[in-house]
C-alpha cells in the first residue's frame, strides 16, 4: 500500500480515472481506486464522464462482418441450452472456445497466484476496510444433511453475508453490500482443493445492497464459497481479491 503523504485522499487518485476506465491499472491499484470511488463524488463523476468514451471505443476498430458460420455455431449452442431453462440456472460449462484454452490460461495482471490471497486479511490495499471485518463463527442449525447457515466473512463495513445450505444446494444471502464498481459484476467462486473454480453466478446487488444468489452445482466437497468483483461477463481466474469468504 502506498505510503505517500495523502495516500487515500483525492489527490492521490486524481490522475487515475482515465487509466481505470481503460482497464489499465494493475489489480492492486484498481482495487484501491475502486475503494476510493465509493467515497469520492468527484472521481465518480470523472469516471462516468470518461466511461462514455471508452464505451464508444470498440467502434474505433475497423468494422468487419462476422463470418456466417460463427452465427450458426453460436445459435446452435444457444438452442441446445434454451429448452425451458430458468435464467440463472447452472448452464453447461463453457463449450468450444473456452474449454480449448482453459488449460493454458495465464493469470491476469497480478495476483491470485498464491492461495493465501484468499484470506481476506491479506488484502493489503483494503486494509482499512478489513479492520471492520466481521469474522463470525460457524452457526449451525441442524446437523448432517439438514439445513444450516454459515456466516461469511465480509470485507465491507456494515455488510453481512451468510450461506444457507440445504441438501447439496447452497445460496448466498447478502445485505448491505456496496454496489459493484462500474463495468464490474460480482462473481461467485467455489473452492474444493487448490485454486478456486469460477461459477456462472454473476450478480449485482439491490440499492440496499441485498441479493440472494444460488451457488451453482452441488456443494459437496466444497471448502469455501467466495465472491469477487470481476469484469462484466465474469472471469475464469479471479482478477481481484475476494469481498466475501464463506468457509465450510
Amino acid at each position, binding site marked *: 500500500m502506498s505510503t505517500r503523504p495523502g495516500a487515500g485522499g483525492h489527490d492521490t487518485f486524481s*490522475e*487515475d*480515472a*482515465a*487509466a481505470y476506465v*481503460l*482497464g*489499465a491499472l494493475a489489480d492492486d491499484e484498481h482495487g484501491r481506486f475502486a475503494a476510493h470511488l465509493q467515497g469520492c463524488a468527484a472521481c465518480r463523476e470523472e469516471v462516468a*464522464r*470518461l466511461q*462514455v468514451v*471508452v*464505451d*464508444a*471505443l*470498440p*467502434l*474505433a*476498430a*475497423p*468494422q*468487419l*462482418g*462476422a463470418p456466417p458460420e*460463427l*452465427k450458426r*455455431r*453460436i*445459435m446452435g*449452442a*444457444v*438452442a441446445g*441450452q*434454451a429448452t425451458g*431453462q430458468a*435464467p*440463472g440456472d447452472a*448452464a453447461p460449462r*463453457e463449450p*468450444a*472456445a*473456452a474449454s*480449448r*484454452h482453459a488449460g493454458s*490460461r*495465464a493469470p*491476469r*495482471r497480478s495476483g491470485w497466484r498464491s492461495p493465501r490471497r484468499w484470506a481476506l486479511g491479506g488484502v493489503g490495499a483494503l486494509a482499512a476496510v478489513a479492520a471492520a471485518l466481521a469474522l463470525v463463527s460457524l452457526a449451525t442449525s441442524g446437523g448432517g444433511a439438514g439445513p444450516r447457515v454459515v456466516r461469511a466473512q465480509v470485507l465491507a463495513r456494515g455488510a453481512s453475508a451468510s450461506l444457507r445450505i440445504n441438501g447439496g444446494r447452497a445460496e448466498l444471502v447478502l445485505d448491505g453490500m456496496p454496489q459493484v464498481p*462500474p*463495468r464490474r*459484476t460480482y462473481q461467485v467462486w467455489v473452492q474444493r482443493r487448490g485454486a478456486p473454480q469460477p461459477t*456462472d453466478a*454473476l*450478480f*449485482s446487488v439491490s440499492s440496499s445492497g441485498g441479493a440472494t444468489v444460488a451457488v451453482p452445482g452441488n456443494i459437496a466437497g466444497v471448502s469455501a464459497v467466495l465472491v469477487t468483483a470481476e*469484469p*462484466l*461477463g465474469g*472471469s*475464469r481466474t479471479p482478477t481481484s481479491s475476494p469481498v466475501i469468504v464463506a468457509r465450510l
Partner: protein
Amino acid sequence: MFKSVRPTGGGSASEPLGALADEELMQLVYRGAAHAFEVIYDRHAEAAFSLALRICGQGALAEDVTQEAFLSLWRSRARYDRGRGSVRSWVLGIVHNRAIDAVRRRGVRDRGAVRDEDVEAQLPAPERTDLEVARREEAREVRDALEQLPQEQSRVIELAYFGGLTHVEIASVLDTPVGTVKGRMRLGLAKMRSTLAHPAEAMR
C-alpha cells in the same frame, strides 16, 4: 457515441422482433427466447467480431472470443441490468474482456499492434440496413475522434484498450514516465469526449 437507433427492418432474424429495441428484446431473452437472442446477435455481432479481431489480430482467435462472449452473455442473461448501460455496451464490454484475456493467454506478442491496413485487407461487410448505415457512421465518428488526437495520446489509449497493457507496461514500452502516460490517457479521453459530444450527446 451510441445513439438510440431503432431498426427499420431487414437483416434481422424475425421481422416483428426486429422492431423491438434491445432493452425490450432482453426481456424476452431473459425468459430464454433464443430467437430474441438471435436478433441481439445480428445487431451486435459485427461490432463484437470487429473488436475481437482488432484486439486479437487473428481471425480464428477472434471467432473463438466472439463465440465465447456471446455464449457467456446467453448464460448470464438474467444479470443484464438496463439501469447500468445499454445492451451494446454490455455486449462489447464482455467481448473486450474476453479478447484481452485471450491474447494474454496466448502470449500474443504483437497485441495492440495490429495495423488497421492489415485488418482492412479483409472484406468489409456490406451495409444492408439503415441500422447498419447508422452504425458505420457512428464508427467513423469514433475513429475520426481517435485519429484526431495527438499521436502520443492516441497511442496510449490504443495500447491500453486494444492492447490490454497496464499504464506501467505502456510506460516501459514507450520509455515514458508513468505519470506522463496517465496524463496522456486523461487528456486523450477528455478530448475524444468533447469531439464525440459535439454533434449530439445521446449516450446513456
